[in-house]
């Protein structure tokens, strides 16, 4: 029987078996940011240890950076202390840092692929759960805690247990107006927010094969929202075409050799999977969440659940979600009033996201009373948007066009919901309080649906608002 990519990468990186039975796994690439690394450097210092392979760690600053002004010191003294601490740590240990002045700064999961630091067959770790994003390249990439950040800094290894592998096939043809975001929200809804515990997700099938790298990243990004610590797509020509010529990938003859090596990493046709799930592309609708976890979503044409129609055991959770969201049992999700529209994040803050939205936003205006914010995932994306006239389309429409960062996805910078504002968001989490206000409400959806909500002032079907699908002939 053949092997999956996960198994091949695992075997290549397993150094030895630890006394407790776990495997000591080598991590090729370590990404760090300002939030989960300072304590790790502190622990390293306390132990009298150094960074073992500084050339294998790359740093950026993303969570706390203000997106309206990069003037330092930052207005928030805590944020300012964090960026200064990171600078101090990377300088002391000789780590490459994509600082705000580099022109390359951005969300860690946007810049890794952008720079070609993310490559097929690598093990990649970062103190951030959305590290699963990098799996789009056929890397085994996962989030770790701060103590583990210390472990990687000190040894470039982690103590890990091997995961099971679930193959998720999405076959068929997506209907017009259905995006990668809808695909992953649908998968999470079907398998549950804890369905992936103990698994790596391997995404495949005709839909994933046809996806661009950025669409694959959107899918892999939210693997963790389904409980899977990592998710990946087998590398193919799309992967190689995306990577070719990027700053950190091999060049010339070394490039050709790398491509041959990467091709051999893809799962064998007769690979063993611990589970296989088949999803029909035609069953996936433009999706919006109605609750307080990413699995609580429905088709835009649907109604939010009526707890009375559900088994008693499920009712408290449903009632809690509806109470927080201030939604009535059974009401249509379409038409719910929106106060904020947020476009950005490591899920949907890439150039293709802004290009797609710009096609429909051109000549439209954000509805009165809606605060609409567009936050490019990196400074590179921001520049591309300026050069292509995309930023101007957003500004013309009434969006606030901001600098690169995580921004309102988790609201560690000044971009926050106020009170119980409801936000149509292209991000990844609709948890209570996620966007900076304990009573704030988040509705997750694709970028084009966020734009539809922004221009109508309510949760809307982008197919009706923009004629999505008709225009692209998808």
């Amino acid at each position: 029987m053949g092997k999956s990519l996960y198994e091949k990468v695992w075997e290549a990186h397993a150094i030895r078996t630890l006394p407790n039975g776990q495997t000591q796994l080598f991590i090729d690439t370590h990404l760090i940011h300002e939030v989960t690394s300072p304590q790790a450097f502190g622990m390293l210092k306390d132990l009298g240890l150094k960074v073992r392979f500084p050339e294998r760690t790359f740093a950026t600053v993303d969570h706390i950076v203000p997106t309206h002004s990069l003037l330092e010191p930052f207005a928030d003294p805590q944020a300012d202390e964090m960026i200064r601490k990171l600078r101090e740590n990377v300088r002391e240990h000789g780590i490459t840092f994509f600082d705000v002045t580099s022109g390359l700064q951005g969300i860690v999961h946007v810049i890794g692929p952008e720079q070609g630091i993310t490559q097929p067959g690598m093990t990649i770790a970062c103190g951030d759960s959305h590290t699963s994003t990098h799996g789009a390249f056929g890397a085994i990439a996962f989030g770790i805690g701060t103590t583990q950040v210390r472990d990687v800094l000190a040894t470039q290894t982690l103590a890990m247990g091997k995961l099971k592998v679930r193959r998720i096939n999405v076959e068929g043809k997506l209907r017009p107006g259905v995006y990668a975001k809808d695909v992953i929200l649908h998968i999470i809804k079907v398998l549950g927010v804890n369905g992936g515990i103990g698994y790596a997700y391997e995404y495949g099938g005709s839909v994933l094969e046809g996806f661009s790298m950025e669409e694959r990243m959107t899918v892999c990004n939210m693997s963790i929202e389904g409980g899977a610590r990592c998710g990946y797509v087998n590398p193919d020509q799309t992967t190689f075409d995306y990577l070719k010529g990027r700053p950190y990938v091999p060049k010339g003859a070394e490039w050709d050799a790398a491509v041959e090596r990467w091709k051999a990493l893809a799962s064998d046709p007769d690979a063993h999977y611990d589970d296989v799930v088949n999803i029909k592309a035609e069953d996936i609708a433009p999706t919006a969440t109605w609750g307080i976890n990413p699995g609580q979503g429905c088709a835009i044409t649907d109604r939010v659940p009526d707890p009375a129609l559900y088994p008693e055991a499920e009712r408290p959770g449903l009632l809690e979600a509806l109470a927080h969201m201030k939604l009535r049992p059974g009401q249509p999700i379409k038409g719910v009033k929106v106060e904020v529209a947020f476009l950005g994040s490591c899920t949907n803050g890439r150039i293709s996201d802004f290009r797609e939205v710009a096609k429909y936003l051109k000549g439209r205006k954000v509805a009165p009373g809606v605060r609409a914010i567009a936050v490019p995932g990196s400074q590179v994306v921001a520049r591309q948007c300026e050069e292509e006239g995309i930023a101007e389309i957003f500004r013309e429409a009434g969006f606030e066009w901001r600098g690169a960062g995580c921004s309102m996805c988790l609201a560690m910078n000044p971009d926050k919901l106020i009170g119980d504002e409801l936000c149509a968001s292209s991000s990844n989490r609709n948890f209570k309080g996620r966007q900076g206000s304990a009573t704030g409400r988040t509705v997750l959806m694709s970028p084009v649906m966020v734009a539809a909500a922004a221009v109508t002032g309510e949760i809307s079907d982008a197919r009706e608002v923009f004629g999505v699908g008709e225009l692209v002939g998808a």
Partner: protein
Amino acid sequence: MALERIQQVTGRAVHVPGNDIDTDRITPARYLKVVTFDGLGEALFHDERFNPDGSEKPHPLNDPRFKGASIMLVGANFGCGSSREHSPQAIYRAGFRALIGESFAEIFFGNSTALSMPCVSASKADIEALAAAVEENPALEVTVDVERLEVRYADKTFKVKLPESARKALVEGRWDPIADLLEAGELLEQASARLPKAVKS
């Protein structure tokens, strides 16, 4: 490095009900704007426990009957979402030494184990029975026996689950893996020499 062997945890318990309690709820992101973990105990479930004006909301952790509890009873998929170690750090620093839940999110579980805080899994029925007993008698002494994988209280005992690697790490005092990882020595350089690396070219 001699670490404490976590064979069992004994103390009073508190039930924090609900499934899919995410790490944003356990430690809201604004409490992550720190460069050390000191003082994080105060952040624990902050927005679930306090109104914006600082007044208390009804929450098990605000209930004086459960003050001083060191064992937390939780539902399914506890600790899902963000990888922030700030969450188990806050739980630990608030005085907790073990969690009993239906299931735990993976990153949270690993972060907790590395802090010497076992997260054992039990059936919903066993947890609810224990929660009812604690509600009846908040002073009830509860023991999480990591070595024997059982929970004991009053005259009751129920079985719990814990992956063998975590059980071993806790019981043998190897829950912080750094010493074991460093022992690889030269194997690390050998691995780095043969494995791919992103290099600017």
